[in-house]
């Protein structure tokens, strides 16, 4: 099983189309690193992206440098995965 310890999901609220395209650029800058759970669609919709722990500082610096407001939707993915797995094991028991 892949481990996602320290990976976070950031929720970004792009103000306009320009900021959306900055987010789309991120996929090119960090190929196969940034995983869009909710892709850049329109300014009225949030963009959720999973960022590996190793890339967090870079990505947050990029967002802040471009004035992209974000919040941390999931602080540590592995914590939720462990809870999910424990719930499945418990149900099986």
């Amino acid at each position, binding site marked *: 099983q892949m481990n996602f310890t320290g990976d976070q999901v950031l929720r970004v609220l792009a103000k306009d189309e320009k900021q959306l395209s900055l987010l789309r650029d991120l996929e090119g800058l960090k190929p196969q690193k940034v995983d869009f759970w909710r892709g850049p669609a329109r300014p009225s919709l949030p963009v959720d992206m999973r960022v590996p722990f190793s890339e967090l500082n870079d990505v947050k610096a990029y967002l802040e440098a471009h004035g992209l407001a974000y919040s941390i939707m999931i602080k540590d993915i592995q914590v939720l995965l462990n*809870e*999910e797995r424990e*719930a499945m094991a418990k149900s099986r028991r």
Partner: protein
Amino acid sequence: RERSTNSFSYSSYHTLEEIYSWIDNFVTEHSDIVSKIHIGNSFENRSIFVLKFSTGGFQRPAVWIDTGIHSREWITHATGIWIAKKIVSVHGKDLILTDILKAMDIFIEIVTNPDGFAFTHSMNRLWRKNKSSRPGIFCIGVDLNRNWKSGFGGNGSNKNPCSETYHGPWPQSEPEVAAIVKFITHHGNFKVLISIHSYSQMLMYPYGHSLDPVSNYEELYDLAKDAVKALYEVHGIKYIFGSISTTLYVASGITVDWAYDTGIKYAFSFELRDTGHYGFLLPASQIIPTAQETWMAIRTIMEHALNHPY
């Protein structure tokens, strides 16, 4: 192995083996109304099954519901299982559902992407695509919701095999998609298609590959509005609705566009709840409330199709 569906926990997530075992028990216990159809095999040669709910007749007007085309969206498989159980539980009691099954058949494909789903349990919980591989291509998997013929290869899909929205080498290149196309085309009398995804609380209809409205967009808008209202009344979860390209983004080669272009006028795509915090990792405690609200929306759509034959 689960011995009967009564010991099966509908409020938990399950592995592929547990789901396939449940399907066998479920069909055995409700053989008067449910049967299992093998529609093909996945890339890694796993069987692909569809549950058929029928009270008789031949090639009746039919409803198609699929879940799990994106493997990491576990809430969708769990919702499909719960809805299957709901149908047999309320048949004969719920007048609307009973009337629907008097005139129509319902087909539910619970694990539309078995290889990807097995992989989310064995290796990578966040895997989305199928597991196909081809000589010379060093990334694995095709996005099965970009591999359909309508608008194939257009905006909102990616030709890069390493992308999460890679559309594949050609339309219906993936066995998981080809199996559905073959089954629905051969049946020839589907009137509704509902493809269930997560997340972001949306109910959408074609087109995804174009901003042009479909011919019956007013009808679909009103029906989506009614369905979303029925959903909201269960647990107060708000959905937005509209055509895919105007509500979310342009996406090409998707299931509902193919269905619509094949003549299925009532084609919808659900993006189930995440209540704003969990994304694809919705806790199992939310399986049943999610399924309950989704059922009311689906029932609204099916009732409309029953009352508006074409």
